């Protein structure tokens, strides 16, 4: 195997693409990226997400130092779920069922890019 599932995913993210896999036999969406498909053991193919999803669950973390921030689970329209956060609004304003859109966040330094989300209504 020339590239690990994680490095392939991150290479896509560097190009502002949110990538996920599908089970080559059943077509089921798979996330996080793996070497084989869960349950079936089938091969996996890579796909680009349209980057639109819905907030499935949300919490606001209150660190002992620093400002509260959002952590959410996002259901992407292609049928996979991931952890992320919703930006551009107050962490307490994030609601289950809210439509959100993906963008790449680049923390800088040695940190890899991460996919974050913002309210879809706020513009595309």
């Amino acid at each position, binding site marked *: 195997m020339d590239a690990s599932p994680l490095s392939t995913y991150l290479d896509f993210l560097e190009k502002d693409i949110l990538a996920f896999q599908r089970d080559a036999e059943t077509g089921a969406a798979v996330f996080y990226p793996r070497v084989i498909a869960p349950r079936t053991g089938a091969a996996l193919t890579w796909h680009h997400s349209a980057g639109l999803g819905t907030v499935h669950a949300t919490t606001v*973390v209150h660190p002992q130092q620093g400002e509260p921030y959002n952590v959410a689970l996002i259901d992407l329209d292609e049928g996979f779920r991931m952890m992320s956060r919703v930006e551009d609004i107050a962490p307490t304003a994030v609601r289950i069922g809210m439509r959100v859109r993906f963008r790449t966040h680049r923390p800088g330094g040695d940190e890899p890019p991460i996919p974050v989300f913002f309210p879809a209504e706020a513009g595309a």
Partner: protein
Amino acid sequence: MSPALSPLPRGGAAIAGIACSDLGAVAAQMSPIDLMAQGISRALEDCGLRLADVDGLFCATTQARTSAMSLAEYLGLPDAYTDSTIVGGSSFEVHVAHALAAIDAGLCSVAAIAYGSTQRTVGRRQASVREYNPYETPFRPFLPASAYALAASRHMHLYGTTREQLAEVAVAARAWAQRNPAAWDRRPLSIADVIAARPVSDPFTVRDCCLVTDGGGALIVVAPERARALRRKPVYVLGCGQSITHASISSMPDLTVTGAVAAGAQAYRMAKLSPREIGLAMLYDAFTINTILFLEDLGFCPKGEGGRFVADGAIAPGGRLAVNTNGGGLSFCHPGMYGLFLLIEAVQQLRGEAGERQVPGIHTAIAHGNGGVLSAQATTILGTAEAL
């Protein structure tokens, strides 16, 4: 694929001895293996066996990578059958099933199941190093609390479970703890206190979260006929079940339905019992949402009704169902992997040795362990001779 533990024989083993090690804040420089050994020594004393009788070691701790090896060395038991399965806080419910299987197969005859943790003394970060998950860690969830908080957010959204109902769980646990002299936190606690406490990860405040203590303990498990020859009233292992649905919260199939559904169903089937016939429910309360989820998933109330089920003191002393009578992980003690204490309390209750908090006239109890972030669910149903 049939359930992992389904061929186990009902009543194929009995818990003959139980003990807690030192709890709370233990002496400086105590190791987790010291606490395991102390628990084993006390549990052997409880049932009248000697260390030389032990030929099976089952143990787990986050502070020793090869804990069975360390424990075998410490105790000088090179020939012991060993099993250090670790699936988080439910490891010990799994160990009971494995000990039953090993005894039934003739691999050992006196199994010691042990736990030790010094997480309060050394710090939680030191005691339980969290693995980096490239798909979660960058978002800085405060784990494990945020994972359970996400499940709680979903339960509140779908079923109208309220902030007050979550708080009821902590208040009931505290009321039980006030009847347990060994409990770590016995101060008065109200619903308003829980809600006004320091926020951790919404909807949870610090009072929705388990304690951070040291502690450990042990069980001695033997064949039923051997247990009847020992000094304590035997408590039989009637049912076992397990289900591991995920490791990380973002991979949990359904945030409001845990693997306790499958684990409980296996255990009830093996025990030939239904929820209505259970006298005591010991449900791993790492966070207040746990108790609500497990009441539903183990069949004590319909899905979505857990919040309303616990309201108005229904699981507090004098309520409709005895739940977490030691005070739970919320008020009794929580050294990181609390599952062993569910079993210890269930045995104490079934023996009729629970003092001021004794639930009268019970012959069955369910001990439901939870590991990871609602990940590894393991159920043990226990009963007295009357339930055999």
